[in-house]
Structure formats: C-alpha cells, structure tokens
C-alpha cells in the first residue's frame, strides 16, 4: 500500500527546460547538445551505462573514404529499406555520418584501426562499400561509455532509476512527465517546456529477442496514450543470427569477417536466396532464408542452422570478434574457433516508433522523439546493420538543435496540470498494488510475448495475426485483474514489470494491427498470403492511433527523393 510521508506529498515538482527520457546514446547525445545553453536533465529507468546501446556489436556506418560517398550510403539505406524510408531523413543520416563518427573519435572512442592508423571499416549486410566503422565487436559499448564520459564532463543532471509513468499534455502542448522513483516508490511530477523520448525499442514484446530485458518501449506507449501516433509498427527486424537458447546477438560482423551459414546438410545455402551478396544480403532476406531452410527440413533439431567461423582462424576471431567468442563460450559452451555456432532468427530491432519528422518533431508541440523509439523514418521496412548506432548520434545532435530552437519561444508549463497528473498516477499505482488475488504477471507476459513470436514473426498471414490479436485482447482483459502480490514501495520490480507489460500490450496491438492491415510483403514484413510488394496501395507509412475501440490504422505518404523506387534484388 502506498503511504506517503508529509514530505513526499508536499514535494516541490521538479522543473527543467528540457527533460529527456532514456540515457542511451540518443538521449545522451541530445543532452550534450542542450547542456551548454539550457537546464536539461535525463530521466532513466537504469543507470546510463546499462542502456541497451551498450550491446550493439558490429559497428557504425559512415562514408569516410574518398572512393565512398554519402550518396552511395544513402542509396544502400533506401534500397535496404525497401523504399519505405523517407529520403530527406536518410540524406541527413548519411551526410552527417562522418561528422558523428569523427566527433566520437575526438571524444576518445577506441575504434579499431587500419595498419596506417585510420579508423577501420568492415563490410556489412546490404552495403555496396565496406563502410562500417567498429571497435572490435563492442562498438556500442565503446560509443556509450565515451558519450557518457562527455555527459559527465558537462555535469548533466541524471535521475537514475526513475520509471516514466506518463507524459503530461496541457491542451495542445507537452508540459511534463510523471515518474516513479524506483528506490522510494514515490511518484514525482516533472515540468518541462520540451520532452524528448529516447527510450529505445520494444523488442521484449517478443519472447525471443536479442534485446535487453529492459527494452519494453515505454516511451512509445506513453506517447501513444497522449494522442501521438506510432508509425510503421509492423516493421520488426528479425536478426538472422541469434544464439540458439539465449537469443543473444551474434553480430553481422561475423559474416562481414567471412563467416558462412550452413544448413544441416553442411551446405552454404545463401546462394539460392541472394546469389550476389550471399551471407551479406540484408537482414530480412537472410532471416527468411534461414527460416525457409528450417521449415523445409534442413535445420538442426528442426530449429537452427550453423554459423561457421572456424575457417577464419584463431587470430582473426580473437582480434575482430573476441566478444562473440566470449558469448559462445559462456552462454552456449561452444568455442567458435573450433566449432560452428548454432543460430536462428530472433527479434532484434524496431523500425517503427513514434511518428516524427526528420527533426524529431511529433504531432504534439514540445514532444520530440529520437533513436530507436522514433520513426523518422530512416530505416523504412528494413534497417541496415550499422545504421542504428549512426541514427542515435546523428539525430541526437539534430534533435538537440531543434529543441533549442523550440525552447526559444516556448511558454512556461503549468505546474498544476503536472501535479494533478502525478496525483492520478499515484492513485493508479495504489489500485494496482493493492489487489491480492488475480492474474499472474508472469503468465500474462509469457502469453503475450509467445503469441507475438508464434503469430507475428518472420512469415505472417492473416489467420495467424488474428490469433495474435485475440491473445492480445485476452491479455489486456487479464491485466485489468492483475495481482502483483507485492506491496513494498521500495524497489518494487514487480510493479515496474507490470507497468512495462501495460506498455507492451499497446505496442503489441499496434504491431499486429499494422501487420494485418498491410496486405503486401515489404522488407521485414512478409505476408505469405500477399507475397508481393504493392507500391500502388502500400508505398505508405502506417500510423497507429489509440481510440476507445482499440488501435486504428491510417496511412501517410513516404517522402521520396533522388532514388527511384525499384524492385529490390541482391
């Protein structure tokens, strides 16, 4: 039961010019941009270094060399997106890429190097040039730690282990956030003229995901609930190579370094699916190829295939892929120097997210989105490896600049509105924690996430998606009757996980509804009952909005540009 001390009840509302939710690369980069001019703070449910950016392995794309160009990078990105990316946003991504990489090098990131001391680059899926810069297979780790160091240098204020419980709107603008302080159980109001959602993706909507356990898309769900649409939610990336058993990511860099995919007959099979690019076709294509091999009976134990690195030799594996070797040894008991790695596709990345433009502006003035939580869209229907780390650093800066512009003319927010909302959230949490008998959190979460795996996966059809929607409705009803069985205020992780599940229910419905309505196959969204791309009807972004009757889908145009829409072959 929540009982507040007099002090807590009377706590002055926290106030900042701008509040960023999420302390991964995107959130940190926005904060760094703002720090010199404005009072900015980051609110995050885990300490910054525990953010999922840390897990990115393979690299970050940038056209650094003279025989590469941002136009080539842009073309690869747009083609990889199956032409659904907004080409104006892709231009910013690729033009600004070298600047973003160089900036982080100057901040101290220990990129791997060529013999002459330049930043090393490796080939990656769907790219016409080896433009993926890397720090061994720990690129995200290196970028995150370095960027956090710079945030520390600037003295940026962090609210660590605060879980955002709602965005607060006053008429037609954002005025703040409410958040649960995990260490005390107190709900606080935060007023801010601008709020930036940088909460990352929502991979944990699926049971088998490479994502950190914290990737529950909280910011996306909060935005949806204050009337901001989500975009292209049906486009979920399934990474071809996740470790059998634990679903931990095995980087595309393993194939970039020359790794082969083998079926149970010991044969390389990618030639059948992508004769030119082979193992380095884009992720959607490789994931479907592996699923097809397994479905046609050429998988191991009916589940997985092999990723073979043994021919690379010990030295190359130790130098370029030491983290992969560690993961295999510790989580699968396998040494990739001596034997192949069992892999299968698993959820990896959310192309969809909060509907915003190339500057992060959402439909609600003052509310911005950035990184995986946002959908600008630079990835369209399928993201290329090496473009997500890039998105965080490029658009972290761009969105930061736009927030500064917005703050110049923004009105001060109403404390009363935020205070009223904090009161409402306290009542809501009290109701959630007081129930003694009811549905089990664990069972509801398992039911939801397994339905998404089974029915809205690599290959989709209308019947399966409808099954998923039925389960989602059942879980939603069950959630109303949830009993946590834990009444402690402090560090109540059961309550946190319940709030995450509440968020994931809305996101799962958005994904499934978007997938049902999109009667075509494009990028990562593959409908076996509509196996062709249909540009006439669906060269469009889908928009999911929350209505009293549930999620409704509408469409809007894609920003096309210099690259003509063509059939996608590799």
């Amino acid at each position: 039961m929540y009982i507040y001390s007099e002090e807590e009840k009377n706590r002055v509302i926290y106030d900042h010019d701008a509040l960023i939710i999420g302390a991964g690369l995107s959130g940190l980069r926005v904060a760094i941009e703002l720090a010199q001019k404005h009072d900015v703070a980051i609110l995050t449910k885990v300490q910054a270094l525990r953010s999922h950016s840390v897990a990115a392995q393979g690299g970050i794309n940038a056209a650094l060399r003279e025989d590469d160009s941002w136009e080539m990078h842009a073309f690869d990105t747009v083609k990889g997106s199956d032409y659904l990316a907004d080409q104006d946003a892709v231009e910013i991504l690729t033009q600004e890429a070298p600047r973003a990489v160089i900036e982080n090098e100057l901040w101290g990131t220990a990129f791997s190097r060529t013999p002459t001391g330049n930043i090393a680059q490796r080939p990656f899926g769907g790219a016409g040039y080896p433009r993926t810069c890397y720090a061994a297979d720990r690129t995200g780790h290196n970028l995150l730690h370095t960027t956090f160091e710079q945030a520390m240098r600037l003295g940026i204020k962090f609210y660590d282990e605060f879980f955002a419980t709602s965005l607060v709107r006053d008429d037609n603008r954002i005025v703040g956030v409410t958040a649960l302080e995990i260490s005390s159980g107190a709900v606080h109001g935060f007023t801010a003229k601008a709020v930036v959602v940088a909460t990352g993706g929502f991979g944990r909507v699926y049971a088998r995901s490479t994502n950190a356990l914290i990737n529950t898309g909280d910011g996306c769900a909060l935005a949806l609930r204050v009337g901001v649409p989500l975009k292209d939610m049906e486009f979920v990336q399934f990474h071809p190579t996740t470790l059998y058993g634990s679903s931990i990511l095995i980087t595309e860099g393993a194939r970039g370094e020359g790794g082969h995919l083998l079926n149970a007959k010991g044969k390389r099979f990618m030639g059948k699916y992508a004769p030119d690019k082979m193992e380095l076709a884009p992720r959607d294509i490789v994931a479907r190829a592996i699923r097809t091999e397994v479905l046609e009976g050429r998988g191991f134990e009916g589940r997985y295939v092999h990723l073979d690195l043994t021919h690379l030799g010990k030295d190359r594996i130790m130098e370029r892929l030491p983290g992969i070797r560690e993961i295999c040894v510790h989580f699968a008991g396998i040494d990739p120097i001596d034997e192949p790695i069992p892999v299968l596709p698993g959820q990896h990345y959310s192309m969809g997210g909060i509907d915003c433009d190339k500057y992060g502006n959402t439909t609600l003035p003052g509310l911005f989105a950035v990184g995986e939580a946002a959908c600008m869209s630079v990835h369209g229907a399928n993201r290329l490896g090496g473009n997500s780390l890039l998105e965080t650093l490029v658009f972290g800066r761009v969105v930061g600049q736009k927030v500064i512009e917005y703050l110049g003319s923004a009105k001060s927010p109403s404390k009363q509105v935020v205070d009223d909302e904090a009161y409402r959230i306290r009542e809501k949490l009290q109701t959630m924690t007081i129930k003694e008998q009811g549905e089990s959190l664990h069972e509801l979460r398992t039911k939801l996430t397994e339905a998404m795996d089974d029915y809205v996966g690599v290959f989709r059809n209308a019947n399966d998606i409808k099954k998923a929607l039925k389960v989602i409705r059942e879980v939603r009803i069950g959630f109303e009757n949830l009993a946590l069985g834990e009444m402690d205020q402090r560090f109540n992780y059961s309550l946190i996980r319940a709030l995450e599940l509440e968020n994931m229910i809305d996101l799962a419905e958005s994904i499934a509804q978007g997938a049902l309505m999109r009667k075509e196959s494009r990028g990562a969204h593959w409908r076996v009952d509509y196996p062709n791309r249909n540009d006439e009807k669906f060269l469009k972004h889908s928009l999911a909005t929350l209505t009293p009757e549930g999620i409704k889908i509408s469409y809007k145009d894609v920003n096309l540009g210099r690259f003509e829409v063509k059939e996608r072959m590799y």
Partner: protein
Amino acid sequence: MLFRVARSREGGKITHYDLYKIQEKKGMTILDGLFQIQDRMDPSLAFRYSCRGAVCGSCAMLIDKEPRLACRTQILAVKDEALKLKPFPPLTDAPPGWDKKTEILIEPLPNLPILKDLVVDMTKFYKSLEDLKLWMEPLESKHPRLQSPDEREVIRRYVNCIMCAICYGSCPVNFENEEYVGPAALAKAFRFEQDSRTTDPERYGEAARKSNGAPLCDLVMNCVKACPKGVAPGGAIRKLKQ
C-alpha cells in the same frame, strides 16, 4: 538446486536468508534462477538486471562467496568454478545453515551499502569517475586522429571495462577503507594516461596517485582474478604506483 538468497527489506544489512527451490535446466544462469523466484515464488525479491548478456554490468553480486555477474554464471557450473580470491570477511563469513554442496548462496556485492536485497548503492563507485575527471577533453577538428593498432592494443584491455563494480566488491582494501576509489576508476585513469591520443596524460596519473587512489592498493590482485571482462585493473595500478 536450492538458492539461499540474502534478504534486506529496508537495506543497510542482511536481515535473513530465504531458501528457494529452482527448477534448473541446462544453460540456465543465476539470473534466470532469480527471475524464476520473482516470477513464480516471491515477487518481492529485488535485484538489478538489463542486458542478460554480460555487457551492461548491472547484475554483479556475490555467488557462492565469489563476486560474479549473475547473467554469465551457469547454475550447473557454479560449484565447479573457483576464482581463488584472497579471503576477507564478506568472502568468508558464511551464514549459519548454508549447505555448500546443495545450495547456491546469493548475496549482494560487498563493499557497497545495501539498498534492498541484492541491490546495492553504487553512488560512491560512480562518483569516483567524476572525482578523477575520467573523460577526454574534446578537440575541435574535422579529422579523426590517427592511432596505430599497436597503440590501440595498449588500451584495449581497459576500454573493455563494463563498470560492473565486481573489482570494487572483490577488493579487501575497499572493504577496509571507505576512501579508496577502487580498481575500476584507477584502471580507467590508466587507460586515459596511456591512450596515444591523450593531450594531457599527466592529469590522469596525478588524479590516480592521490592519497585515496593507487597508493592505497596492496596489490592483492583479487580484481584481476574476479574481473569478468579480463580488464586486469591490478596490472594498471601496479604501473600507476611506479
């Protein structure tokens, strides 16, 4: 397998231990076991987690009296592995009733204040990074700096640190002396000092050699044995001392 888990509802000190029966299967980690408890037996159990893949550094704790990452420790292998650390009280004072053969003992990471159950207060650990100013002063330039593969190799070990605080929790000096900044911060200072790109290497060495830093290290080397990422802070501190 049985888990004997340290509990502390209000924080401060361990008040008691709870015993849970875990349904284990091959490949299951200590973290999986803790989730099984939270999901099915006792939703009040508090512990930190994030990546479950040994890269985020959230889930450091004391497992069978050795500081480890819960996500990277296999239940079935715990009893076969030993870090062979130099003993100090948190590693030797076993709770009464603990049956070493049949129970895995799980306790909060030593040397940091307990907030609740397995959650410790990392404030002091993070603060040392700020106190030692462990960041690079950014340069204004349109071009990246050169660094040879050999020069990068000098700092490779140290940039792999995930700030899990296992070294801090394994160090007898951190146990005895609250002032000591600990191995992770010193290893990071050494990394900046040694980085061929650093323009002011002296300041990191000076910060690390202050009275609450490298001089306090007794070169016990528990940090080197316990580090899950092969960072080997003790080697860096030895060089800082010289």
